[in-house]
């Protein structure tokens, strides 16, 4: 896109059938509101291909990469990026995350059977914060790796034990303790949710405004996309939330007044300590070579990851020689992208399907 200029990223969501724009979000230099004509032609070219049984997936201009993705023949997402480190892998995963974030908040039914476009537009505003969090640079890697960002806490076993008991008392099997959008500990059942769901739930909680507690309806994109569950969140200290996923009972009031203090107040210190490991993701006692500035450690089986670009404790002393946080982030993400696209193609499940489909059918 010549006219867009600068570097940035723009995301557009439209209905597949009629091409009505539902929303657009952006980061960086690309103007907040894309002209309607640009949106129209971007969608038009995709639709044109569609009518000829050609699935258009991606293209590049001189400085911009454009990726299209269609979901359930109902929602089209288009992303345009002029950022140098925007790989296809990243852009495809971004669109996948964005769509599933929409499912998480409004449910699949409303996205697949669009009855009232205006209503849908309004409802989708509830996803903006979550979607925008994917578009802002963060200390997390889940948007790229689609794995769950974890924190290794100081008192893991104590927190785990308390969480298990608390979740059980709240008549649920699904409980999770989060610090700034990363999982500290979670119950066994929580880990059995799809990795993307665990990741989305953590990002969702981190993206919401500061509140003491919430009773938030969520549609699990893979496990329960049409029947909502209740996500109860309780802010133990600012930045640390304990969450429970449950059905119609118990009430928010009941869990909050009867259980939260009883279970968590005795653990005030270990809970607060979660905030201290936040940037580093693991305790200071963990020995690490001086030369390591950042790291991304992924357990592919469990789809969990530990990610940090501030691996060293007392770092400011050697500030002069080290890379800026931004550069570290970019380097680590680029390395991950390269490794996955070159050496672990099986990780790319979605993208491969996408490419295959781009051939004439």
């Amino acid at each position, binding site marked *: 896109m010549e006219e867009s200029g600068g570097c940035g990223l723009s995301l557009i969501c439209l209905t597949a059938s009629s091409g009505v724009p539902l929303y657009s979000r952006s980061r960086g230099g690309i103007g907040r509101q894309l002209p309607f004509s640009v949106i129209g032609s971007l969608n038009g070219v995709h639709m044109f291909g569609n009518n000829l049984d050609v699935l258009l997936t991606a293209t590049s201009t001189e400085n911009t990469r454009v990726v299209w993705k269609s979901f359930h023949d109902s929602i089209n997402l288009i992303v345009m990026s002029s950022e140098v480190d925007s790989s296809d892998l990243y852009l495809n995963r971004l669109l996948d995350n964005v769509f599933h974030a929409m499912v998480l908040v409004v449910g699949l039914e409303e996205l697949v059977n669009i009855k009232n476009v205006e209503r849908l537009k309004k409802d989708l505003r509830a996803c903006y*914060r979550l979607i925008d969090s994917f578009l802002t640079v963060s200390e997390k890697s889940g948007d790229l790796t689609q794995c769950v960002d974890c924190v290794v806490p100081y008192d893991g076993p104590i927190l785990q034990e308390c969480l298990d008991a608390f979740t059980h008392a709240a008549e649920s099997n699904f409980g999770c303790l989060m610090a700034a959008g990363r999982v500290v500990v979670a119950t066994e059942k929580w880990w059995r949710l799809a990795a993307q769901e665990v990741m989305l739930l953590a990002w969702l909680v981190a993206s919401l405004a500061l509140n*003491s507690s919430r009773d938030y*309806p969520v549609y699990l994109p893979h496990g329960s996309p049409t029947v909502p569950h209740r996500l109860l969140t309780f*802010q*133990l*200290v600012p930045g640390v939330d304990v969450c429970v996923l449950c059905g119609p009972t118990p009430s928010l009031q009941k869990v909050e007044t009867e259980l939260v*203090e009883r279970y968590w*107040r005795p653990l005030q210190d270990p809970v607060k300590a979660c905030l201290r490991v936040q940037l580093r993701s693991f305790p200071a006692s963990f020995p690490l070579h001086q030369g390591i500035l950042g790291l991304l450690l992924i357990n592919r089986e469990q789809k969990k990851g530990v990610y940090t670009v501030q691996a060293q404790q007392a770092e400011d002393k050697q500030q002069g020689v080290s890379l800026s946080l931004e550069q570290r982030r970019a380097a680590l993400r680029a390395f991950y992208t390269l490794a996955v696209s070159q050496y672990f193609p099986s990780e790319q499940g979605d993208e491969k399907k996408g490419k295959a489909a781009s051939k004439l059918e």
Partner: protein
Amino acid sequence: MKSDAPPIWTWKSRLRDAVLILALYLGEVGFCLSYKLYTARDCLNLGRLCVAERRGSGVMAAFLMPGSVIITDWHRSSEGKEFLSSIVRKNKRKFFGLIERPVLPPQVAADTACYKIFVSGKSSVGKTAMVAKLAGLEVPVVHHETTGIQTTTVYWPVKLRDTERAVIFKLQFWDCGEATLKKFDHILPACKEKADAILFLFSFTDRSSFDDLPNQISRVAEESEHIVKIVIGTKFDQYMHADVTERDLAEFQRTWRLPLLRMKSVNGPRLSDGQTLDGRAGLADVSHVLNGLAEHLWHQDQLMAGLVVPAIQAPKEDSLYL
């Protein structure tokens, strides 16, 4: 009042042993008959308390003059400031997680009284904005419908007039989006469960939200006789574009006899970093609302405990908290 505050109850039972005094008082607000288990000095203060009539439906509503239950300008005194420092540090409002609470200087002590307050009103009337303003958080400038229920805890230290005791009010606001409320059945019962107060919001700039108040009150407040009910007019800063006049309000109050507060939910000045909201300035904007809530909640507790008996009184026409 919830379990959090047993010491207050022991204090109340002590009061019950006090002498029963019948006080008759003629004041600026009109004729007020009230008796209370209090000392003589308290009875003079009590004259400032006027309590409204019992309506046909059995709904009981109380009109309190500002300052009849608490000392409204206490926060400006040196003692008040000491208490305020537990919720404002370095001019910044403090936020507390559910397992934290304000820490008072060692030489002062106060009990905590917890209340659940349900914020009701049609979409975009300003529920979320009001709660954010009261909590000293950034007020959202664009309207996004609230999804599900979100609660916000606000601590507010108060000095009781009659006993000169300081009490920390822990006000927990329950806010849910109007659209969510219609979509999911469990939301309204959850918000009303054990609520101590319901706030009915209308917007000064939206006539229909004002006209809908009677509907809203009967829809939401059925079977909640002993709950504090307060009407709050939002977007009062947009007074120039007001769709609702003072006459409308007077008329409404004559019929409904509910206390009325006014709210300007706009972000106040910021600190020198240009980012952080000035905590003290923010509190000054909303102290009349927090005081008003505290007074009515405390008074209702006393009514329920039989420490105050309502008397018949026509409310003054003008609304009371400005």
